């Protein structure tokens, strides 16, 4: 059976994680993983909700050792978790707090119980083992599972490291503002470090001042794994960040001007990573210098009649791009925009048809539609919704929505209207919805 090691290079006393300025070594990690693996129940799938990056990794690795699959819920919305719990009824949860998902049994990931042993062996994991299942919101209203083999996670981590020129001897430390339960966070803040003998900060800083303190709490050289949103916040706040070798940005397009500002202000190099759930990270670019994306080693691009697709040894079949791209040879492409059904709010991708279905399932809603206005200015553009729900208050619909969709997709605002401007075929055009929005704004100005 083909296997790949859980860790890249292994040295027991090398630092893997930094927690409040204290180091946790790779040796202690293997011992923590061994101890937890012995305690895990005999179940095929696990929902790992740990907020602490180190404890998440211990749970993830222990599950791998036991041949189990980690589920990555699309959001923390109670409804989304309950849906996964229903679909994977034989799962259990790993937590580092008090979270509970439906009736699933919960296990605490213990904090540093193991003492490192010199004899610890780095576990070997079969490359075709389904290591994680990530979910996309399909157009059916049901989350669509995408299984990722251990081999594919390792391949993406290694090719990303090669692209960034990472050397084990650098022993770089990652500080990440993104959750490790999302594909990008898992790839860049968990897999990339463990496959290159790197370290990471256990926390997930949010505010610019948090980012500064987290970076200051780990030794140089440092890498910041983040999003355009956090980069803009740090640039706007003119944060005095400690020196970072490079910044990795993903989840939404980063403008060249913002990348330039960040490079100048923080004296660093900004790379963007492009990927999507079905394929994982697949290309990078140095935003200030190039418009085209360069695919990672081992990936090839294909132009087909229906659109573009990509192929790699670790992907079972060619995967079509969800975004509009044009190819520049087999290894480079230019991104032109999103497919019309996809929305991206603050780095969270959603499907409009999925959101619409959930809206229309709410009791009392007769007709309703989500709408993404044209982007203006620099702040995050939010969805709005038009809803026909006689006798219902907007608050009632909002609180029902809150239980089934990611809070980032909650409409802002939700307009209650007598009817939607559907055309004779029942379709709602963007023009008609824009017209409706303008009308509502006009009414507001006139105070009617």
């Amino acid at each position: 059976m083909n296997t790949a090691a859980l860790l890249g290079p292994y040295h027991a006393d090398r630092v893997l994680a930094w927690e409040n300025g204290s180091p946790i070594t790779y040796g202690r990690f293997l011992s923590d993983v061994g101890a937890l693996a012995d305690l895990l129940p005999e179940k095929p799938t696990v929902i790992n909700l740990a907020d602490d990056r180190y404890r998440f990794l211990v749970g993830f690795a222990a599950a791998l050792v036991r041949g189990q699959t980690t589920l990555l819920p699309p959001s923390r919305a109670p409804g989304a978790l309950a849906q996964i719990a229903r679909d994977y009824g034989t799962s259990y949860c790993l937590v580092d707090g008090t979270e509970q998902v439906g009736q699933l049994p919960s296990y605490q990931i213990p904090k540093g119980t193991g003492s490192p042993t010199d004899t610890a062996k780095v576990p070997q994991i079969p490359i075709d083992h389904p290591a994680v299942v990530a979910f996309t919101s399909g157009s059916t209203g049901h989350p669509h599972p995408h299984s990722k083999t251990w081999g594919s996670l390792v391949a993406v981590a290694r090719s990303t490291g090669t692209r960034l020129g990472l050397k084990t001897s650098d022993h770089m430390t990652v500080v990440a503002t993104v959750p490790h339960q999302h594909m990008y966070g898992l790839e860049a803040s968990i897999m990339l470090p463990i496959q290159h003998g790197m370290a990471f900060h256990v926390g997930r800083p949010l505010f610019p001042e948090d980012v500064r303190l987290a970076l200051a709490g780990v030794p140089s050289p440092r890498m910041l794994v983040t999003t355009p949103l956090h980069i803009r916040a740090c640039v706007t706040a003119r944060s005095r960040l400690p020196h970072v070798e490079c910044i990795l940005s993903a989840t939404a397009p980063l403008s060249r001007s913002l990348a330039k500002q960040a490079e100048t202000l923080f004296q660093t190099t900004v790379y963007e990573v492009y990927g999507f759930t079905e394929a994982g990270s697949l290309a990078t670019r140095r935003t200030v210098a190039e418009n085209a994306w360069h695919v990672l080693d081992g990936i090839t691009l294909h132009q087909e009649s229906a659109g573009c697709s990509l192929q790699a040894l670790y992907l079972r079949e060619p995967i079509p791009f969800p975004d509009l791209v044009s190819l520049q040879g087999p290894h480079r492409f230019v991104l032109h925009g999103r497919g019309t059904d996809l929305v991206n709010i603050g780095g969270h991708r959603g499907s409009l048809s999925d959101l619409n279905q959930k809206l229309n399932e709410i009791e009392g809603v007769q007709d309703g539609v989500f709408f993404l206005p044209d982007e203006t200015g620099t702040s995050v553009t939010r969805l709005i919704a038009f809803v026909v729900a006689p006798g219902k208050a907007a608050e009632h619909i909002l609180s029902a929505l809150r239980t089934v969709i990611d809070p980032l997709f909650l409409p802002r605002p939700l307009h209650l209207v007598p009817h939607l401007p559907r055309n004779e075929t029942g379709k709602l055009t963007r023009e008609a919805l824009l017209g409706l929005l303008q009308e509502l704004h006009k009414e507001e100005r006139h105070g009617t």
Partner: protein
Amino acid sequence: MSDVSSLEAEVAKLIVRTLTLKVDPAQIQPEEPLFGDGLGLDSIDALELSLAISQFYGHQIRSDDPDTVATFASLRSLCQSIEKHRTK
């Protein structure tokens, strides 16, 4: 203690303007939760709001500050934190 101070009125306007909310600033109850069930704000809002607060009041909000959860609990607690830390 339900009187709205002038700082609270000012910050309420800042919240509504920064986050393009469809609420009358005067309707934001000083003790009402800003996140979750109250105004229903999320982490992107927290980030946007923290930027506006640092620009207007010179107060850099951080989440490992033991007070942060309390800071964002309500308009009133946010204003108390601004009052304490403001440099502008």
